[in-house]
């Protein structure tokens, strides 16, 4: 109860983490802090025994070996000044970058939901259960979802036929997917719905006939009908059990299998958009130009050998994939969810180290949650963490659709990269530029490659150049005054620049 009544202690000796996040505070069993190179989880005394029991269990070993659960080890006071002798702390590897459910494609939601159900099912078979089941407990390591909350596991009453986290799973996984598919409520809107949607909200919004769809009649319509707002307090404390533990397990397994079916139904049909077939349908590129561009990017990647690459406006990920194949860890984002879905599916299928996020560089995902310190903004997660940033055919979008001046684009790019920036400049004569120009020739019709270089000059020097027959130009920029240095240090320097 201490965890519920008292706010988390923050003794003076605790140095603040540089992540900009508050330690987590909802789970009474413990709290998590993000450090530079790891995540530290403090376990409260009341949860100590069950946590140690879980750490010793074959279930934990199996889940870690399959990659479904984040690795944990007991943190030593010798390695971490935060850890006081006698306290139980766990150390986990940092997942970088963190991505939030409001930045996932539908297929990523499905993968995260299926992971949660798979883990819940294994836990039930081993005599454990998941006490919570929310997308916020899942992060993506590259394209692979991983459950990161080891405090979610608790011993199961072998006779209980209820999965207490069922309601949370329905509200936070299933109903957002149903709402996205059948009501057009974007998955991005979950930024404002930490606990998802209540069944009655979805029931009210669905057309009357659709409320009886067998796919969600139980979790939407029936659950709404069974709601009892004025129930007696004693009723809320009683849960059904079965005399036979084998029956209890059978019921729980059936329930999880049903949720799996419902998730597959709600997240089934892939979306298509203007941009999802863009690479294949591009009319403004002749095969020779595409080949020349590919060769230049490939040669640049092989020469620079970047460890971490950011692909802004990655589309379906041709170049993100090239960077991954050249040995880089890649973060790729695009505002078009359908195009990014193709990217994520390719990366997941081929096990490429690419983290995919649905995000818009011009309107980056904001910080969110309690005091805006529970979830980091997109830029806080990306600034200064990349050796090479790709902005291929993106800048004309920022100029024409976001009306961003070139100098500000250069400043943003300089805050993201530690050293290199590869730009594809699309000139005003290009059909794609003309498509978005829309009569604003006087303002934007005469911008040239020289204007780009001049605007970027305070931050970058041109290191290489390749012109294509279709008048587009590939420019490799090198950050001035930065030849090497740690990510965090560079990030701080850059952050000052970008806020100056």
């Amino acid at each position, binding site marked *: 109860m201490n965890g519920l009544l008292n706010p988390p202690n923050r003794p003076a000796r605790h140095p603040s983490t540089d992540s900009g996040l508050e330690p987590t505070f909802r789970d009474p069993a413990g709290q998590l802090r993000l450090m530079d190179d790891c995540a530290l989880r403090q376990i409260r005394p009341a949860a100590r025994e069950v946590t140690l029991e879980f750490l010793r269990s074959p279930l934990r070993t199996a889940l870690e070996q399959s990659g479904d659960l984040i690795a944990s080890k007991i943190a030593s006071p010798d390695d971490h000044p935060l850890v006081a002798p006698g306290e139980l702390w766990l150390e986990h590897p940092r997942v970088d970058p963190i991505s939030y459910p409001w930045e996932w494609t539908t297929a990523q939601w499905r993968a995260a939901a299926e992971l949660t159900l798979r883990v819940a099912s294994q836990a039930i078979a081993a005599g454990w259960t998941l*006490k919570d089941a929310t997308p916020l407990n899942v992060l993506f390591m590259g394209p692979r979802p991983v459950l990161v909350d080891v405090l979610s596991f608790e011993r199961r009453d072998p006779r209980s036929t209820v999965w207490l986290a069922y309601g949370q799973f329905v509200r936070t996984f299933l109903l957002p997917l149903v709402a996205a598919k059948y009501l057009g409520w974007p998955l991005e809107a979950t930024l404002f719905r930490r*606990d998802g949607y209540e069944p009655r909200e979805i029931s009210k919004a669905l057309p009357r006939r659709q409320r009886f769809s067998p796919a969600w009649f139980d979790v939407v319509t029936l659950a709404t009908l069974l*709601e009892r707002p004025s129930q007696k307090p004693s009723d809320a404390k009683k849960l059904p*059990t079965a005399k036979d533990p084998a029956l209890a397990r059978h019921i729980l397994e059936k*329930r999880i299998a049903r949720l799996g079916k419902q998730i597959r139904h709600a997240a089934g049909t892939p979306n298509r958009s203007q941009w999802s077939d863009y690479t294949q349908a591009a009319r403004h590129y002749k095969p020779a130009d595409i080949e020349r561009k590919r060769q230049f990017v490939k040669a640049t990647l092989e020469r620079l050998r970047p460890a971490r690459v950011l692909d802004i406006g990655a589309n379906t990920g041709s170049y993100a994939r090239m960077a991954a194949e050249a040995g880089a860890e890649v973060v790729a984002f695009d505002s078009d969810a359908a195009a990014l879905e193709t990217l994520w599916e390719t990366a997941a299928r081929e096990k490429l180290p690419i983290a995919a996020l649905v995000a818009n560089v011009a309107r980056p995902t904001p910080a969110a949650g309690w005091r805006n310190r529970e979830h980091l903004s997109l830029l806080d997660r990306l600034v200064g963490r990349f050796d090479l940033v790709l902005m291929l055919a993106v800048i004309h979008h920022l100029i024409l659709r976001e009306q961003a001046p070139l100098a500000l684009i250069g400043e943003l790019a300089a805050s993201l990269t530690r050293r290199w920036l590869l730009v594809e400049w699309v000139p005003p004569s290009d059909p794609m530029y003309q498509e978005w120009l829309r009569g604003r020739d006087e303002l934007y019709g005469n911008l040239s490659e020289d204007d780009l270089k001049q605007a970027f000059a305070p931050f970058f020097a041109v290191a290489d150049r390749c012109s294509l027959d279709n008048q587009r130009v590939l420019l490799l920029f090198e950050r001035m005054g930065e030849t090497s240095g740690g990510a965090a240090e560079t990030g701080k320097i850059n952050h000052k620049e970008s806020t100056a």
Partner: protein
Amino acid sequence: MKLLRILPLVMIFMGALLLSERPAYAYADPGTGLLALQAAGSALIAAGWYLRRKIYTLFHRAKPAADNQEEAARVVNGEDSHSS
């Protein structure tokens, strides 16, 4: 008619299951409607579990081999009735 015979049994099992309860200690909000849905769903699945052999015989003439000890014994002893 077989269906009518098993109906009282279904009701008894559902009632027995719903009456058997223990205190709940939830961390995540279990909801009210979704929790009640689980209770009702549990009762239905339990009914199916207890009556699975009866339900099986509604649609199949022969009993499943694994559920029939005599038949299982014959199979083990090499006296498989289906092969004769």
